[in-house]
């Protein structure tokens, strides 16, 4: 049992996501940074699909009611165990009665706490992820509150042997906002003028305070649309198109761009002019409000290559812990 003493700003139970229901309008939810989520799980001997706690901007204070093996991966929130600093990206033993305490994120935005055996909430439609907008999944469909109690699943037998194991430095990502976030242009980039298409990938965008699990709203230069006759079925705004399914990670431009994240609406009538490649979505999710984002457009082949290399890095982490 884990007791929540202070819940932080926004802490939810998340896993690999509620896939397979997009067609009925159900977004996947799940950990915004799947890389850090999986790494934390591997460190404690779990499979990647075990549920972790996703803490945003400010971590929580938790009291453990039983011995456990835990790992933190993602943003650095200066974690302590009974007031003693503990490392991130490393498996740590906790004893019944211990207090794990986190502060605010100094590098990155989201931290994942994995516990051997996983956070054991009831799965819903094949996932333990929380979708807060309509209040389903996770712990009572909502962010954690003080006084909540979470069950821990049966820990894998080898978890105790993993205490002290850590992720190689070469596989620990940097969350500084210098590196470009890669996108593939489309499906509706034809709506932008050539100048605005170039501007999208040249401008320095700023993450606005509204950015959350639903979407990352960005602030920057105005984008211009190609003049056109309003098509049958599309709205009157120049950014409107005939309704289409929105890819996860797609960038819509009602005016300022919004990158649709894992809790976003699944379709609608805004032009989506590009899509953040899967390998970089977690890095975008680690950008904090007021940080900058630049986009780099890459080919589909490059995007798939980035995905393969991302998966290989996670596999290297997993196999290093066997």
């Amino acid at each position, binding site marked *: 049992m884990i007791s929540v003493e*202070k*819940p*932080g*700003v*926004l802490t939810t139970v998340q896993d690999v996501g509620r896939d397979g229901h997009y067609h009925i309008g159900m977004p996947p939810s799940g950990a915004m940074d799947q890389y850090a989520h999986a790494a934390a799980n591997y460190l404690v001997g779990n499979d990647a699909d075990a549920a972790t706690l996703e803490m*945003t*901007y*400010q971590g929580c*204070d938790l009291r453990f009611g039983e011995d456990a093996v835990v790992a933190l991966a993602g943003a650095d929130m200066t974690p302590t165990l009974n007031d003693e600093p503990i490392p991130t990206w490393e498996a740590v033993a906790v004893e019944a009665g211990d207090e794990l305490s986190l*502060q*605010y*994120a*100094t590098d990155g935005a989201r931290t994942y706490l994995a516990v051997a055996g996983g956070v054991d909430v009831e799965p819903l439609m094949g996932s333990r992820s929380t979708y807060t907008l309509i209040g389903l999944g996770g712990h009572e469909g909502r*962010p954690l*509150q*003080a006084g909540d109690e979470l069950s821990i699943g049966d820990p894998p037998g080898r978890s105790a042997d993993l205490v002290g194991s850590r992720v190689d430095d070469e596989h620990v990502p940097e969350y500084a906002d210098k590196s470009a976030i890669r996108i593939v242009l489309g499906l509706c980039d034809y709506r932008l003028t050539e100048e605005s298409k170039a501007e999208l990938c040249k401008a320095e965008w700023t993450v606005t*305070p*509204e*950015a*959350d699990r639903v979407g990352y709203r960005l602030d920057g230069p105005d984008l211009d649309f190609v003049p056109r006759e309003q098509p049958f079925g599309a709205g009157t705004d120049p950014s409107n198109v005939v309704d289409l399914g929105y890819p996860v990670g797609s960038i819509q431009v009602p005016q300022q761009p919004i990158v649709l994240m894992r809790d976003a609406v699944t379709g609608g009538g805004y032009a989506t002019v590009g899509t953040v490649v899967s390998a970089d979505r977690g890095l975008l999710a680690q950008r*904090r*409000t*007021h940080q900058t984002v630049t986009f780099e457009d890459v080919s589909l082949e490059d995007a798939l290559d980035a995905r393969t290399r991302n998966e290989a890095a996670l596999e290297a982490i997993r196999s290093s812990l066997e």
Partner: protein
Amino acid sequence: MYERPTLNRTATGRNMTEETTITAPMPGVFYRRSDPDEAPFVEKGDRVEAGDVVCLVGVMKNFHEITADAAGVVGEILVEDEAPIEAGQELVRLTSE
């Protein structure tokens, strides 16, 4: 609105009074009032009790109340209303007796 966030404080002992600084537990936008038409939560020189709201931080479409955790007198307010702030930034000085 979720649970009130933890405050991080730096304290300097000085005779019978203690000056503390309330810092932001999260990045976002600093608000001195609950509504543009309302008076600010606190002004310099106001006396506050523990638990009184001194400002809000808006982030992820929620407003988080930042409260005094001890009684005291409000000193310098270090940030402009509606200014963007970073986690850890000093917001309001407070002198307690």
